[in-house]
């Protein structure tokens, strides 16, 4: 599907989707409320078949967190980017590791560095940082007087 067709199809699945324009791929912004059903739709819906999650990103916008999921279809070769806004004080989102297995490690990384909690994740532990590490190093308000020299 091309960009316009993808948009039409996504509008059928999501009540009032917000699209971001000007990006390379079709980008839709949503909230965590209906995320689980929408994620299953993205994977399985007729004509979409987004069976490959090739990137999971977390962004700290200071006012909120944004989870970014890059999805592509190995059948149709089209790509959709889904952005999910999360509360800054309590960033919680339902895991997609049961929908796209690769998300298991990606979500552990986002948890490790940003402190985003993925409910239903099978093994949400630190990935890169040591097990006893305190804090979330990639957050904008992160302070570490021991290891960091501030400029």
């Amino acid at each position, binding site marked *: 599907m091309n960009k316009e067709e993808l948009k039409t199809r996504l509008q059928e699945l999501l009540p009032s989707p917000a699209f971001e324009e000007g990006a390379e791929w079709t980008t839709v912004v949503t909230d965590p409320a209906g995320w689980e059903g929408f994620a299953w739709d993205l994977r399985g819906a007729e004509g979409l078949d987004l069976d490959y999650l090739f990137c999971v990103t977390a962004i700290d916008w200071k006012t909120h967190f944004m989870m970014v999921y890059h999805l592509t279809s190995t059948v149709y070769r089209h790509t959709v980017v889904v952005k999910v806004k999360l509360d800054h004080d309590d960033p919680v989102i339902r895991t997609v590791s049961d929908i796209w297995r690769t998300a298991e490690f990606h979500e552990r990384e986002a948890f490790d560095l940003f402190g985003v909690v993925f409910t239903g994740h099978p093994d949400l532990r630190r990935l890169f940082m*040591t097990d006893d590490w305190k804090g979330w*190093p990639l957050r904008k308000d992160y302070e*570490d007087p021991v*290891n*960091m*020299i*501030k400029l």
Partner: protein
Amino acid sequence: MDVSQQNKSGFPGEVHPTAGGGILVTKLDEVINWARSNSLWPLVFGTSCCAIEMMSTAAAKYDWSRFGFEVARATPRQADVIIIAGTIVNKMAPVLKRLYDQMADPKYVIAMGACATSGGPFFYNTYSVVKGADHVIPVDVYVAGCPPRPEALLHAMIALQEKIRRGAS
């Protein structure tokens, strides 16, 4: 140190010609250091982009074997010199220390590039990077650059040889 001046007289000592041969007059320490300096086996060790330049230095175009570094070893137990080619993060520091401890004496260290020297581009606002590999193991020669060109690394390696010959390392 002036690298262009070295290697001219190479061997430390002089030969006094006698009938049917000659007598070599030298100091044993200097001969040992001279031998060591000409057969430095580097450890295969690289943690980031400096390692690419190091591989280039080893490969055909720059070919560090011209200076006696030909046998890069994949085990610290057979290596004489470790070139810290890249960033050392806090999690890598104990690994680097263990590698250094596993190397047999005499052993030498070259800190290649800005990261290994001081943390370089990761000096400020980083939670994970060691601000200079000399916090972990003692360094003989530092090379500037990000990454240094192969010529710069060769210069450092020759400087290390000179340092060993002088008995300073």
